[in-house]
């Protein structure tokens, strides 16, 4: 097993692009900020909407057109995470963070050029295609390294990084808005804002590139478990196991349920209390959306850390089981009590964030650390699927209900029933997760003949 670690470490090679092995005295607490510097940057993607109105007026675009860079970016995130995962495992976190930095910043710089030349296709290509590759590679870049540094608390470690992805939008949203206000919403102002974003994110992400280190040994914590404890499964073998597809279903259902609220949060709370004595104003609805973002972020670090204490399977039982209960409470009593509605929605969103953050540690428990980053990348296709499924269900049903003359809370009743059904499907899939069959494990390398001879002589 030890040789598996050495073989794996040697496969990185040497030079700047290889992950430098931590020198003596290196603290593992330097790795989470390295991961955060990447995730806080690429999390900007969820603040793209800030650029939509100025782009629409400056370049004469429709709402659908102005959403294209973001949509392509998310598609590229899923594709590059799924197909680039094995490469990330082979080349190491420093290489991955460098690729993420170059692609994400170049995406902004190309967009700046596109805005100044008023060539919208260049913004779509730059931010969506090039930047999207940076999103996917950046998202999975620190996962495997964090798990190796924190074998005793993998849930907390990945929770910190993935919380950063949620936090990135919180930073970028007001920052980008203020920048556009200063530079102006015309094409040259947008171009300047893109340029500043590209340069700032390059400098900010550089910390991650410079700080990231892989542990010197398989046991980075004296009292903790070995990195190589438990079964080790390659990414190619992992997707041949029922466990991978059960987890795929669990993630997809959990994310769909979260998006079910997130997608229409503002109109939902307004519709729910439209006929009450205290209707919800537009500003209050915006406050509700902000509160949901806070719950999403808190869930990522809070629930993922809790999973280190109560176990991965149990925490997903909570996400999916209690999540279904929360949806039932909203459907039955949500329109009669505003605090109950808000509380249930916050819990659902905290489970949504928790589901994202806990899944790398769940993968580590099942498949080991050997290629956990690559396996995680492939599992993220569940996110892409849910990103289409969630909004589709909620919007389509709400539109049909409106056409049928319904209004208020009854617009969402059927959506909630479907969400409960999806969560139950996820719950069952989680129950079906069992330890991976040994035939999928990476075989331990055979000892050379002379070592075997020495061992038999000393026995």
């Amino acid at each position, binding site marked *: 097993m*030890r040789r598996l*670690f*050495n073989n794996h470490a040697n496969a990185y090679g040497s030079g700047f692009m290889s992950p430098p092995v*931590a*020198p*003596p*005295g*290196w*603290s*593992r*607490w*330097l790795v989470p*900020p*390295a991961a*955060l*510097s990447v995730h*806080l940057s690429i999390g900007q993607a969820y603040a793209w909407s800030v650029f939509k109105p100025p782009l629409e007026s400056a370049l004469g675009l429709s709402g659908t057109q102005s959403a294209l860079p973001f949509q392509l970016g998310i598609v590229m995130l899923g594709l590059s995470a799924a197909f680039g995962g094995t490469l990330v495992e082979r080349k190491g976190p420093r290489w991955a963070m460098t690729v993420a930095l170059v692609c994400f910043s170049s995406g902004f710089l190309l967009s700046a050029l596109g805005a100044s030349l008023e060539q919208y296709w260049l913004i779509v290509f730059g931010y969506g295609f090039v930047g999207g590759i940076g999103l996917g590679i950046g998202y999975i870049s620190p996962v495997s390294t964090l798990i190796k540094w924190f074998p005793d608390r993998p849930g907390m470690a990945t929770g910190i990084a993935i919380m*950063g992805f949620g*936090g990135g939008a*919180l*930073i970028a*949203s*007001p*920052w980008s808005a203020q920048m556009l206000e200063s530079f102006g919403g015309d094409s040259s102002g947008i171009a300047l804002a893109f340029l500043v974003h590209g340069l700032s994110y390059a400098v*900010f992400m550089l*910390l991650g590139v410079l*700080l990231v280190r892989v*542990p*010197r*040994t*398989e*046991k*980075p*914590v*004296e009292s903790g478990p070995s990195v190589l404890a438990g079964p080790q499964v390659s990414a190619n073998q992992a997707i041949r196991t029922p466990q991978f597809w059960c987890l795929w279903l669990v993630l997809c259902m959990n994310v769909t349920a979260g998006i079910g609220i997130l997608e229409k949060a503002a109109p939902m709370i307004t519709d729910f209390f439209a006929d009450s004595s205290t209707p919800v*104003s*537009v*500003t*209050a609805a*915006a*406050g*509700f959306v*902000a*509160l949901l*973002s*806070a719950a999403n972020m808190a869930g990522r670090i809070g629930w993922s850390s809790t999973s280190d204490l109560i176990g991965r399977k149990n925490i997903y039982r909570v996400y999916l089981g209690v999540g279904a209960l929360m949806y039932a409470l909203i459907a039955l009593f949500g329109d009669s009590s505003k605090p109950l509605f*808000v509380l249930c929605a916050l819990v659902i969103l905290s489970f949504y964030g928790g589901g994202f953050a806990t899944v790398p540690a769940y993968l580590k428990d099942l498949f080991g650390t050997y290629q956990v980053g690559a396996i995680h990348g492939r599992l993220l296709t569940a996110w892409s699927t849910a990103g289409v499924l969630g909004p589709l269900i909620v919007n389509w049903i709400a539109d049909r209900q409106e056409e049928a003359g319904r209004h208020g809370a009854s617009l969402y009743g059927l959506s909630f029933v479907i969400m409960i059904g999806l969560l139950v499907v996820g719950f069952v899939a989680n129950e079906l997760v069992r330890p991976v069959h040994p035939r999928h494990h990476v075989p331990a390398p055979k000892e050379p003949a002379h070592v075997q001879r020495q061992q038999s002589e000393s026995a």
Partner: protein
Amino acid sequence: MSSDSSQSPPSPDRRWLIAFAWVWVGLPLAYGLYELVRKATQLFTG
């Protein structure tokens, strides 16, 4: 495998590096959280 030298306590230089790294990521995050709290309070005041 030899005992892990990364387990030894960080030197004073590294403690500064740890502090710097956390401040580097903590400051923008604190700004984002401040803006979030400002907006979220609108639910109760708006």
